[in-house]
């Protein structure tokens, strides 16, 4: 298991163009030894779910800074399940208030990182919590 490199899809759903965080995380995960695919901006939940399946991702990291997280996160999870890929872990970050983060976790989002989280913390979390899909 340890031989297979984890494959992480870093995705920017929605319309906002704030990709500073997504790019830093993508680079840090890559430096951390994972295989990283970055979708680029302005992706629909369909595009993300499709890419996650096509690319055989082990996890999807979503970055949302537009306030649309309560719509976009659950939609990605729903579409992954619809494609029989519900085991792909979804985590994410952005401007997400604590009470929304709690709700998102109940909806199946594995972890939410908010402003101030270090890349080290995120890389560590991925390493400890994401297992390669079999």
């Amino acid at each position, binding site marked *: 298991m340890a031989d297979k490199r984890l494959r992480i899809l870093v995705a920017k759903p929605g*319309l906002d*163009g704030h990709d*500073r965080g997504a790019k*830093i995380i993508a680079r840090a995960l890559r430096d951390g030894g994972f295989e*990283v695919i970055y979708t*680029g901006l302005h992706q629909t939940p369909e595009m993300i779910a499709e890419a996650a399946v096509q690319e055989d991702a082990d996890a999807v990291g979503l970055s949302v800074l*537009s306030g*649309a997280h309560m719509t976009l996160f659950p939609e990605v999870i729903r579409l992954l399940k619809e494609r029989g890929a519900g085991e792909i872990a979804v985590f994410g970050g952005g401007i997400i208030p604590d009470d929304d983060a709690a709700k998102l976790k109940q909806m199946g989002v594995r972890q939410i990182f908010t402003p101030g989280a270090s890349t080290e913390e995120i890389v560590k979390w991925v390493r400890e919590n994401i297992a390669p899909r079999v």
Partner: protein
Amino acid sequence: MGSKKKWLETTYRQASERPVRFSTVSDMELDPLYTPGDVTGSYDDAIGNPGEFPYTRGVYGSMYRGRFWTMRQFAGFGLAEDTNARFHFLLSQGQDGLSTAFDMPTLMGYDADHERALGEVGREGVSVSTVHDMAALFDRIPLDRVTTSMTVNCSASILLAMYLVVAERNGVPWERVGGTIQNDMLKEFIAQKEWICPPRPALRIVADMIEFCARKVPRWHPVSISGYHIREAGSTAVQELAFTIADGICYVDEVIKRGIGVDEFAPRLSFFWNLHNDFLEEVAKLRAARRMWARIMKDRFGAKNPKSMMLRTHAQTAGASLTAQQPINNVVRVAIQALAGVLGGVQSLHTNSMDETLALPTEQAVTVALRTQQVIAEETGVTNTIDPFGGSYAVEALTDRMEREATGYIRRIDEMGGMVKAIETGYPQREIAEAAFHFQRQLEQGIKTVVGVNKYSVPEEIPIATLKIDPAIEERQIQRVRKVKRERNSVAVREALARVADACRSGENLMEPICEAVRRDATVGEVSDIFRAEFGVYKDPGWI
């Protein structure tokens, strides 16, 4: 002057230094001391008096002794009437100009009822899909007296058209309408990343607007050349300065190519800078920007009118510098950043609210932010004398250095064939991503400090109140847009949209056809769809 070298080798060496890296937030290393020998250029050539070339000390002769800067808080959320209420509140609190934040669908050219707008309507700004929304947004606001700034870029032509149609319906002729529209598409591709079509047609639309405003809306600033977003995306101060001025050069080139004289439009170009934490670096950046623009306009473009050489600017404190941790500390950051703006000589200022890393600001938080400007203006005394930092060895040396380093970047961009080519190869985008990553690394290694985040953190945060946007407004706005679409004369709309498409193809100025289309109730999304069909859609190359 050998004295500094000698002092460094003797007196300074005897003292001990803290074991840290003495560099700005942009990681520009600084000397322990600046002396007269560090300042290049003579007073008359490089600095000059306020209101005189090269405007290093300020664009106006009397600066804040004449009048304060315009206190202009950016606001927008929910439905048009929600934001209209916030506008009236801000004006009642002593704010003198309006500044509109639109939501993401409006900014990206989608109507509220488009599937891509799902979950985003009214979230990050106000939703405007039709001219009726624009009318509600500016209800009971005298458009001939209050100047308005609109932060919108790829759909700017449509929103400006709607604003002008609302003004004419309120009996205000276009000649009397004053304000600014951001409309800086180059920095969108570089940093903020809101776009519809690719860079070249996007630049053509911007140039159409500059030309149209010069002829028909003479009090309007048709573009606000923006470093703000470049900095927020993680650039250094020098990169912000360099890429922004290079964008300005590209716009001027583009309009001149149409056979329009530089002095016919350049006096209406305006700028927008970021105000970050590093106090001296920011003051120096603003002073260097004015000097660079003045020299470029005079020497490179042969401007004769001094107004073409004056860099007049709005500025905003750095959103990315605010912390979600111990958010009340943000009040202090904003105050210091705003002070740098004032000591840097800005004409208009937005101060961020302490809660903006968490959500859009509450009315209470916005009030504190506005009061911060009023305290600087009316209590601190810094407005009594013009450019008090002028002649400071450190600030003058930094001003020189910022100009020198930024000029190096601009030369490189010129060698690439200009900013559009540079953007197409991803050059500024990569430079910024590199700088952002470098800063993040320095933060995680403790080389740079953010109070309350990587130092002086507390285990339990005290929550502060945040603004909640009612999700029900999305449905209300969708119904409203659908009603307009149902009730309008659809034949008239189709004809008007066809004229916009014709203008896209023929090269005729787009603004009059767009004004006519929105007059007939064509929507933001429909006009944007014409751009998509005629010019194509730009896709993010997704460089990491």
